[in-house]
């Protein structure tokens, strides 16, 4: 009988990649994902698509904030650079989407590098304020560079086409989104199994000690910004293709806060946590909406009430996790799992 996962020796512990999915499981996961659009209705597909985009964005933010300890309120700005670059490259320069998205992500990385420079001098709250400045500068440029961005109105983005096949439905865009979500998750997972990921955590835990064993703080702080904004760039590019329109309000400060909430609730410094957080933050308003719909019969004003309830519930959830479960849903899940593995011998 399997009785918990106690590793006693180093030899059995050597399986560093133990959490790596076995190929069979990976194939099953991919097959499952491929089937989703065939069974899910457009409503749930839309929700799943938004979760997928949020997963990529949240992993990006978690790499910067959760793993490297550099607080950023500038994530919406990074998303907007990714979305606008993708849209502009496609609409104005006629670049195909499969080239536009990586180019835009690369551009967003450069942008992240630029706005990461203050991190070499600033920490904590001061860095947060600097990233806030990045947010407002970006928003300002987007609104005022009308020739490129069409200002506050934004502009439409034609659907991506694959071999002349337009990705113009929720089902079709689902494949594009999850074709990027899966590698984004695995890339990040792999990164934190070895050198670079460990260096990020070392910088977060104790920068003095990281430097003294040869980890260049300059390089890794900036690298965290670069990787984080690359993810944000991809997520932004997908947002442009999912909503097929880019406009400034889609990248308000609230979006940055939402992403911070995702990683706080899901679990700081956890890739899986980013996924849970992205799902939680996307699903919660839907659940509230469903609740409201069923209530309208009894209480016609339920929708208005729920709209304000959303913010309150989010606020309370954030406070709850910060106070009682700083490692987020990921930690709760882990406890739950080890409980069942040991059950009924748990003590």
């Amino acid at each position, binding site marked *: 009988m399997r009785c918990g996962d106690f590793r006693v020796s180093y030899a059995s512990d050597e399986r560093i990649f133990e959490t790596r999915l076995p190929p069979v499981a990976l194939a099953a996961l991919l097959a499952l994902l491929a089937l989703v659009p065939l069974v899910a209705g457009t409503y749930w597909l839309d929700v799943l698509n938004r979760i997928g985009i949020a997963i990529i964005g949240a992993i990006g933010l978690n790499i910067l904030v959760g793993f490297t300890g550099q607080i950023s309120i500038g994530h919406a700005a990074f998303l907007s650079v990714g979305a606008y670059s993708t849209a502009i490259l496609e609409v104005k320069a006629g670049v195909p989407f499969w080239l536009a998205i990586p180019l835009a992500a690369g551009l967003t990385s450069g942008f992240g590098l630029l706005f990461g420079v203050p991190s070499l001098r600033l920490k904590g709250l001061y860095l947060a304020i600097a990233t806030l400045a990045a947010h407002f500068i970006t928003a300002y440029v987007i609104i005022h560079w009308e020739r490129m961005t069409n200002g506050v109105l934004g502009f439409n983005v034609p659907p991506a086409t694959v071999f002349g096949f337009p990705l113009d439905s929720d089902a079709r865009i689902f494949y594009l989104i999850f074709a990027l979500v899966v590698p984004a998750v695995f890339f990040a997972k792999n990164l934190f199994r070895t050198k670079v990921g460990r260096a990020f955590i070392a910088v977060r835990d104790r920068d003095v000690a990281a430097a*003294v064993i040869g*980890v260049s703080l300059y390089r890794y702080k900036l*690298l965290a910004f670069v990787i984080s904004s690359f993810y944000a760039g991809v997520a932004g590019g997908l947002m442009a293709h999912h909503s097929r329109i880019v406009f400034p309000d889609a990248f308000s400060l609230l979006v940055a806060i939402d992403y911070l909430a995702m990683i706080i609730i899901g679990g700081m410094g956890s890739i899986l946590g980013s996924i849970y957080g992205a799902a939680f933050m996307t699903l919660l308003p839907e659940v509230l909406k469903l609740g409201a719909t069923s209530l309208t019969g009894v209480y016609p004003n339920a929708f208005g009430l729920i709209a304000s309830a959303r913010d309150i519930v989010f606020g309370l959830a954030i406070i709850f996790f910060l106070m009682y479960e700083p490692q987020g849903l990921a930690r709760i899940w882990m406890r739950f799992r080890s409980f069942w593995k040991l059950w009924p011998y748990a003590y």
Partner: protein
Amino acid sequence: MAAACLSVDDLCVNFGGLRAVDHVSFAIESGRIHGLIGPNGAGKTTIFNCVTGFYRPTSGRVRFLEHDITGFRPDQVAKLGIARTFQNVQLFASLSVLDNVLVAKHGHMRTGVLAEGLGLPFVRKQEHAVRDTAFGLLDFLGLADLHRKPAASLPLGHQKRLELARALALEPKLLLLDEPASGLNTSETQALGEMLGRVRERFALTVLLVEHDMGLVMNVTDVITVLNFGRKIAEGTPKDVQNDPEVIKAYLGETAGAGRG
């Protein structure tokens, strides 16, 4: 005379009006265990911080082997082969014991973001190799059984040993130890002394040791430099230093040194 591994020339460090290090010069021969002692506030840690790039000296030079490392960044100093431990232990609290050591393998790993993210086979091979080395090191220092524990959960004695393991993982040529015995009891201190001997033998290291425990210092060092109020007041073999009237005067009234020194 053997070649100098580290030489500090005419070093001065000011903090505002306070001169923490005042025209100090000394050289450490390769392969030696060199002691650096002095009463509290004498400037020992400040010298460590100058050597490892945390402070920039007000004047003077620091040379390591053939390099002038004055003004280098800490990570640059580390790459040249200088490792240190801290007076107040500085571990990566959330990482496991093994991971703490693995972080120090950073400089020996050649892979980049792309290869690691893609999980290429040679990345995994490299990771296994450094894990073996790190585990061997933990074994050598008697921490192997604890390798999965979070660093923060260890008692102080083990934390200090882990910090030593992490420093050794750099495969340094020069090891700076800042009060490795502070907070340890007598038997632990004795064990530490023996361990230092073994470490020097196995890793062919040069060591600069700052320590208040005079028993340990007199036992393990070949040469001792004595500081007081930022100035060098004596240098020589443990025996010479012990009988030096300047040194005795500096330590008078200091409980740590007066009894044994």
